[in-house]
């Protein structure tokens, strides 16, 4: 992370960092079948996608389309039935491999998953000493430095998460992921429960982080506008069983600001995407499944 990454809302975004060497993801023909008491539920059906290192990809789809399943497989929380997932050309998950979570793929969850019994600093530094490289003091110093760099947050280091607003909690969570220098950031509808104003601020915050670090980001959302605004690619998934319906290249310049949402380029792109998603939503509706959440 470079210095000016997230100082405040008015700070201009830094120029886009170079593509990193790591963070290339390859999802090949992945199928996931849940088998609760014998009833087959196919969550993912032959899903494939490639992400170059430094890509910002958003995945959009109705509830139950398997987008969280995909993220759980990537994060190492869940197994897959068939297919393979590679991270930087190394096999991450295949049929029969044990799910292996790692600090190179930390997830930011939609409900927020800071540990409420730890202070902000303890949360942020939780993963740092596991590798045996840092002492408690070094980890704390690094944690404070990251908090300070991310919008002068060092002042809340000894607060507990319940004392913070949801936006602040999410920022801390993102710092907790970034401090481990992950190859890929996995964001599972992180701003879902927020009102529009806070959501917009978090968008700017995330975009600045992306500008500065150029981490590979997989951003799961049900909100198409959010996806188009943030990502370089938007993948629209079908309802269960989840397959890829559309792969939209978002050819909008960076750095991005909310004014972009009024531009012709953005609106044209949105129109095309909305039509495609509506078609899929209608199919889901006709089949009696839950609508686009």
């Amino acid at each position, binding site marked *: 992370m470079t210095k000016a990454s997230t100082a405040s809302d008015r700070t201009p975004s830094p120029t886009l960092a170079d593509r990193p060497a790591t963070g290339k993801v390859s999802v090949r023909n992945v199928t996931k079948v849940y088998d609760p008491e014998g009833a087959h539920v196919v969550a993912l059906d032959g899903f494939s996608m490639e992400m170059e290192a430094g890509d910002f990809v958003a995945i959009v789809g109705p509830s139950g389309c398997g987008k969280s399943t995909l993220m759980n497989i990537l*994060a*190492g*929380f869940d197994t897959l039935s068939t297919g393979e997932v590679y991270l930087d050309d190394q096999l991450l998950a295949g049929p029969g491999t044990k799910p292996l*979570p*790692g*600090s190179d*793929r*930390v*997830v930011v*969850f939609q*409900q927020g*998953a800071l*540990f*409420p*019994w*730890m202070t902000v600093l303890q949360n942020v530094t*939780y*993963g740092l000493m*596991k*590798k045996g490289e840092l002492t408690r003091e070094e980890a704390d110093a690094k944690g404070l430095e990251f908090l300070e760099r991310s919008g002068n947050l060092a*002042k809340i280091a000894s*607060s*507990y*998460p*319940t*004392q913070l607003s949801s936006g602040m909690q999410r920022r801390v969570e993102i710092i*907790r992921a970034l401090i*481990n220098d992950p190859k890929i950031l996995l964001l599972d509808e992180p701003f879902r429960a927020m009102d529009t104003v806070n959501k917009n601020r978090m968008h700017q915050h995330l975009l600045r982080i992306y500008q500065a670090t150029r981490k590979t980001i997989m951003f799961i959302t049900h909100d198409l506008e959010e996806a188009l605004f943030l990502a370089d690619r938007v993948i629209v998934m079908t309802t269960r069983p989840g397959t890829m319906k559309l792969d939209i290249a978002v050819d909008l310049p960076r750095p991005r600001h909310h004014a972009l949402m009024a531009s012709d380029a953005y609106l044209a792109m949105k129109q095309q995407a909305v039509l495609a998603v509506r078609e899929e939503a209608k199919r889901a509706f006709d089949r009696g499944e839950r609508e686009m959440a």
Partner: protein
Amino acid sequence: MSDPMSTTVNDTANPPVKRLRKSRWTISSWNWRGFVSIVIFFLAWQGAVSFGLPGFTKIPGPSEVVQTFVRDYLFSPHYWHSWLVSFERVFWGFALAQIIGIPFGLFLGTSRVFNNLVFPVFEMMRPIPPLAWVPLSILFWPTNESSIIFITFIGAFFIITINIYDGVRSIKQEHIWLARSLGASRSRIFLRIMLPAVLPAIAVGMTLGIAVTWNVVIAAEMIASDSGLGRLTWEGYVSSTPPVVIVGMISIGLAGFLSTIVVDMIERRMMPWKYKR
């Protein structure tokens, strides 16, 4: 760790001392209505006894109770010994229920094998009221004291265990996942994630447990003991000295209240994050 007494206030916004004083001791926050209602309660009680309202003919008024208390009990070692004995029983029953109930609940929630083996028996015995254990307990345990502590233990044990079992099952899956992502070993996940996550459930178990413990110990003392506050109250009835019954009742109420305060203090110390806002 910060001073536990200051955890109710947000120390970044307001200095703790100032806020404490304001919320606790100024006239504006003093509940004068509560004071009035307590005064009215005692006046009504005294009035009902003085006028001999139906049912009140055999019941002493507050003045008589206070007289009896000051004359016969306030300076009586026997009376204070009753306090001590009851508190000891509550302490041991409660402490044993925690020491055995907490790991028991944790195992029930984490080990499927243990759960499958033990939970049916647990559920079979749980509905039996603690006092129904009295006869069997007296037959089984060698001393009266141990049987009373056992009954007290039974009262708190099931409540504590079932609360912790519930607490384990409601641990957020995301927390476990994240801890694993961040490289935590199984033992560290247990110590740093699961244990703190069930602390609120342990606290609920403690609050409910201490109340049940007092209920049970008093009844057990009335049935099966020759000492303690429960016995004191019962003897007041048997010896036809009603003021003693009321002295006993008030003492029991006070003892329960004091225990609740202690439990509350322990809970605050246990979970500083819950009380810091």
